[in-house]
């Protein structure tokens, strides 16, 4: 039955560990919704049939006198509280609590900067340290505004539209935008985070399936919004990822 409703809802393929809770919550809420709707609807149709004027020419001034409806409302409120307190709030805390974000050693750290209409990403390189940034240095050849006088910047790797990450290891993305608001969304990984200029927001996920995923821009960002679909996240084995990263020259954007 649980599988049936998952199928009926048409949830897309899930390829991340963090997405399991999201899907479960969606399924449980839909159980509640369906139960309420079907219950209401059966009552509704029955009442319309039973109390139509032709069958029941004289109305009863008082109508229902019991308190069943109060109990139903209390039950609904109770279920909502349970879902809220025991499922939704802990899930969200797990997703966004900055103190619980996987640390550098155990995760792949990436800085993502959206622009009209593409996705840029930056890796810290061999030293594990991102070079300093200064938005005053932004230009068409230096999209992140990297300060190249900073020694840490020398081995940073910047890529356009093609972001690789290793499988089965948390990925922490620090998401920002340099022009308007975009939204970094990968459907199968159940990750969504608005990319807002002036802010740098962490979002993390743990992909469990190798393959190529399309990055959706989920926030209207101008006339190229629907065409901002050239960004891909490639999930691959750790070895393949290491090889790929090593093949990138530090310090400059590579256009593939």
């Amino acid at each position, binding site marked *: 039955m649980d599988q049936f409703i998952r199928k009926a809802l048409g949830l897309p393929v899930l390829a991340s560990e963090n997405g399991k809770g999201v899907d479960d919550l969606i399924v449980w809420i839909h159980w509640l919704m369906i139960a309420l709707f079907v219950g209401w609807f059966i009552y509704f149709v029955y009442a319309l049939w039973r109390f139509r004027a032709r069958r029941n020419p004289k109305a009863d001034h008082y109508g229902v006198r019991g308190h069943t409806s109060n109990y139903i409302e209390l039950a*609904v409120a109770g279920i909502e509280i349970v879902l809220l307190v025991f499922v939704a709030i802990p899930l969200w805390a797990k997703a966004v609590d900055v103190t619980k974000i996987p640390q550098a050693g155990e995760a792949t750290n990436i800085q993502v900067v959206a622009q009209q209409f593409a996705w840029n990403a930056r890796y810290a390189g061999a030293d594990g340290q991102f070079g300093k940034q200064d938005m005053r240095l932004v230009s068409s050849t230096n999209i992140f505004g990297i300060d190249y006088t900073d020694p840490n910047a020398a081995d940073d790797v910047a890529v356009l539209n093609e972001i690789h990450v290793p499988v089965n290891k948390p990925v922490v993305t620090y998401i920002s935008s340099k022009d308007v608001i975009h939204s970094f969304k990968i459907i199968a990984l159940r990750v969504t985070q608005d990319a807002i200029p002036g802010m740098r927001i962490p979002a993390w996920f743990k992909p469990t399936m190798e393959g190529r995923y399309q990055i959706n821009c989920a926030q209207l960002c101008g006339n190229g919004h629907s065409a901002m679909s050239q960004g891909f996240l490639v999930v691959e084995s750790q070895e393949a990822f290491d090889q790929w990263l090593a093949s990138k020259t530090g310090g400059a954007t590579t256009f593939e």
Partner: protein
Amino acid sequence: MQATTHTMPHAGVHEAHHEEQGFWRKYIFSTDHKVIGIQYGLTALVFLLFGFFLMMMMRWQIAHPGQPIPLVGWLLERVLGDVAAKGVMSPDLYNSFGAMHGTIMVFLAIVPLAFGAFGNYVVPLQIGAPDMAFPRVNMASYQAYVLGGIIMFVSFFIPGGAAQAGWTSYSPLATSIPTDGQTFWLVGMIFLITSSLLGAVNFIATIIQLRAPGMTWMRLPFFVWAQFVTGFLLLLAFPPLEAAGIMQLMDKVAGTSFFLPTGLAVGGELANISGGGSPLLWQHLFWFLGHPEVYVLILPAMGIVCEVIANNTRKPIWGYKSLVYSALCIGFLSFIVWAHHMYLTGMGTKVATFFQTTTMIISIPSVIILTCFFISLWGGSIRFNTPMLFCLAFLPMFGIGGLTGLPLGFAASDLHLHDTYYVIAHFHYVVAPGTIFALFAGIYYWFPKMTGRMMNEFWGRVHFWGSLIFMNVVFQPMFAQGMSGMIRRMADGGANYATATLQKQGVEVIGGLSDKMMNLHTMILWGAVFLALVQIPFIINVFWSIKHGKKVTSDNPWNATTLEWQTPTPPPHGNFAHAPTVHRGPYEYSVPGHSSDFIPQNETDKGSRQH
């Protein structure tokens, strides 16, 4: 017999010595709340149709991206120029139409219809007042609305076209688009907000001050309560947006940076602005209005549903007091749920917990209201006329809209559904087969009072069944599309994310949009076309019935209890021939031991009343 002798000095009996008003004074610059209500209604219906046409063209583009729009493509090219070259809708034009569809539907169609039209026409009649408290402010409110509407409409034809940043107009996009559409949008909004504020002040003053003798708070028809709460929502929620609108206007035209952060680099180079502003601040100010606005759309609709259900079940509404308290709760709570539109802007645990909790709490009074309506059916003697059919359909349709708000109200499930078609389907179920159905019901219900003639019942039923079926054909598939991950506001209907398109380019992705989901676009397009067709009988019915409808045989053709039916038909300037006195609650239907199955509010216990 006190009622028959009591008159209020300022009530409408002096109509005999009214000087004859000319056409302009009577129909264009009128201060009569009923004329203003009808002005609001007709203007809003025109905008409703216009907003619908915008959407039909967009649905064509979504289903057949890049193909010329049939029938009207050439006209668009002729009038709008390059943005519709060869009759094809460009992404710029799509974004304009999208932004303006939302703006027009919310601010120029539904709110003016629900609040401006029905509120103006019905509220003073229902409370037994001769007019609104400030008739000239009322006229100014309508005029500001028309000016705002004209500015919005004209913006389609300026170079670059209308605003393109969505009805939510998020900064920095809104101010970074180089055309002037956004400037027009903001100026238009300032007029519309001013209009709403003038209306809100007037409604609140009228309901507090001008109730007829005996019309205590708990004898007010629920419709009046709904409008009263709506008035407060508009009064308190709109000023922040008016301020925000002026700030964004300054960002656009005066080089300020209220909503623009330091280091903004549009198009590769650092923008030449001072910076220091916050894009999120705009979102907070916008949604601080935006969420109460949802209840501005839905409360008057619930008010209409309540009146029509009580009248057509021939019994009192069940739980009148619960309805009133629920409406008040909703009014209060609607001010503290706004950030549930912003879960994915980087919201932390504590703030998200607060807004998730308030969002769940506000669902409870909504459930109570809906439950009261459902229970009211039990024991009734239900008449299925056109207004009742629309109100009955409102219940499950609004139910779907409300229930599907739950997975969006929890941050963790919103993570997947945010900005997908699921959201579109959710709020359209609330507003389209929800609110608009109630507004249709209101038109069919009060039409005989406004004109003295009934609308045609057969064509009313055609309109109802057609609308019910095709509304669902249009919006039901969007739940499936959204669940599968289809993102809204795509000028090509998401074709770039479709598995089929990607395969053509030799790209294999996990989780692309399936052919099945993409093909639903065609079904929705045809649903929209047929939805348009079934509105034709309605439009003809309205105008035809003004002159040719069946004449009403009494001032109270529905055998209703509330005061608007105790006036002459149509009510003259000043409304009541004799000022009414109220002796009872609003829904005294089928009272045991009484000869007729309804007792008007102004009837004394001895059975006399004034006409």
